[in-house]
């Protein structure tokens, strides 16, 4: 297996920690976009003979996760004129510690799982687990709608990393579905974010508390 792939996965895992530690929304979006581009490069590096499907996945991922979605998020942020500071429920240092602990646990856990010989020396499984965990911490630990969207996207990035294990064997269908739904999902989320803003004059999901027992 290509040693460069592990380097990229390590980089993506580093970006996970960066996204947990950052206190500004634009920085979070930048980190996420960078992670998207790194993920997009990976399938091309994994394969030696370049199938057009693999190239298509790579291009679509870079365009989707690296360009389109971040720019949509930036637009949503501008139109909604929200405060750029993030407002954590779980503080930055605790989230960093959680994220780092999670990455170590993911490395340990991945050793316990049976892997095919060609996947045994990659970081794909621990990388995927750590990224999914990061996504969850952001989803739960940040209050602003846009930062929750970022958390959701990082969660999806983790799933994509896991999907790379299957890129050769399983039909393109699964991957295409992911990209399509991801884009559509963010579109819709974006619209909703916009409407929530109009309805509440704020993007603070803590104010979404009218519906309670």
């Amino acid at each position: 297996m290509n040693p460069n792939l592990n380097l990229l996965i390590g980089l993506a895992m580093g970006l996970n920690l960066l996204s947990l530690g950052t206190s500004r929304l634009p920085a979070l979006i930048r980190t996420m976009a960078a992670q998207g581009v790194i993920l997009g490069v990976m399938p091309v590096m994994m394969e030696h003979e370049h199938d057009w499907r693999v190239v298509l996945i790579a291009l679509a991922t870079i365009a989707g996760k690296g360009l389109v979605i971040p720019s949509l998020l930036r637009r949503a942020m501008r139109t909604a004129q929200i405060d750029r500071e993030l407002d954590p429920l779980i503080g930055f240092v605790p989230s960093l510690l959680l994220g780092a602990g999670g990455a170590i646990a993911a490395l340990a856990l991945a050793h316990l799982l049976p892997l095919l010989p060609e996947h045994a020396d990659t970081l794909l499984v621990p990388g995927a687990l750590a990224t999914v965990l990061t996504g969850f911490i952001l989803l739960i630990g940040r209050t602003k709608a846009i930062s929750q969207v970022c958390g959701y996207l990082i969660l999806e990035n983790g799933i994509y990393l896991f999907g790379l294990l299957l890129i050769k064997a399983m039909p393109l269908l699964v991957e295409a579905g992911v990209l399509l739904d991801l884009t559509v999902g963010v579109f819709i989320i974006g619209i909703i974010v916009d409407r929530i803003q109009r309805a509440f004059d704020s993007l603070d999901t803590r104010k979404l508390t009218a519906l309670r027992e």
Partner: protein
Amino acid sequence: MKPHLLLIIVPLLAAALAAAWPCSRTRPLLLPAAGLLHTLLCGWLFFVPPAVEPGAWLAFDPLARAVLPVVSLLFLICAWYGVFYLKVRRERPNRIFVAALLAVLGLLSAGHQARHLGMLWIFTEAVTLAAVPLLHFNGTPRAFEATWKYLLVGGTGIALSLLGSLCLGYASLHGGGEGNLTFVALMAQGAGLSRPWVLIAWVLLLVGYGTKMGLAPMHTWKPEAYGEAAGIVGAILAGGVTSVAFTAILRIRCVVGAAGAGAIADHTLLAIGLFSMLVAALFLLGTRDFKRMLAYSSVEHMGILTIGAALGPAGVAASLFHVWSNGLTKGALFLSAGNIRRAAGSASMDHVRGMGLLTPRSAAIFVTGMFAVTALPPFGPFFSELKVVRAALAAGHGVATAVFLGCLLLAFCGLTRVVFGIVDGRPRHGAMAGGRRYAETTAVVLPPLVLLGLSLWLGLFQPAVLLDVWAAAAAQLYPSP
């Protein structure tokens, strides 16, 4: 064109047509038109089941035959109600609503017929997204809040079910699979699937599709969504969208069973089902909102379905019966609750009372439906729940049966408390002072009445053909070795 594909294509074409239709007064008529065509097609396939190619990705197989007709029927009756509902709500633009509702029907038909792990996921995800515009139709801040929670919780659930699907794919790959993700191929691989990956996949898929179904503790989107959505949307979500997640769990359960982890799967299903019933019963004792009450009742009934799924072929057949009886009865409840909600202007017990005088016919349907859904004979839910109980006792789950019955009793107390709270007494002055009483026309009373009648018919007659279909679906899921 194969007829089972028409079930998917007709509603999707109708959705596209609705999106392009210029006149918003006549657009809602597309709902019953497409619904009728769908029901006729579905009925034809039901009585003349087509041969199923084993490797097909989409097919009207015995499981689809056991569930899809009721979804189609429910949609048709809701569509009929929807025409009049949208006439009342003329102030809201209905283009997206009608198109999304039709798209939901098409995608549900696809999801029920999916025999491929990836296709199943894609269609479930698509249904989730298509339902979003339905939830914020009212455009109020509360509706937006409900939509946001639905999307965040539902989106996370759907993401986890994709991760679970990938894990199951890896289990197959690790066991030497060729990358064929149809359920038939996965089951044929059986014990060759890598066990640790199958178990991880099962947990993730159960959590993921369980979120879509609304099992506790992943049910948090449900009270918000059902509480704020229009009655017709609630009926279709509760009777249709949740059932696609349920059949997904059934199909995956049989792969896990083939891999030799069936006992573990059954234990988790039983535990999560009982937990859902318990949580729902406790919340039913506390809620003061009659639409949220319906949501908790739905959580409870999803728990019953899940318990049935844990009990082998007899339990699965009982669960499929319950999909029918619960879907039809819930439909009647949601539609009549919608009428009451419109007449009263609020859904909270604190503001609503005396609806027996203000909207006598809807209130009568609501009360009867409440008794039906709490398993009063001779309505459908009584017999389907009885079958679940008998399957549980036959499998030797005495304690679980006791908890099950206890939860039913608690739920009965909770439901009667809220329902009689709003139906009894004298109407508040505010409700009468407006001078403009809500007109209970035949058009808004007949659809829920028909649904209730169907529930009664299901209980009284239990047609032999349906019993055979449910048993055949259970036999598909538990192939004899």
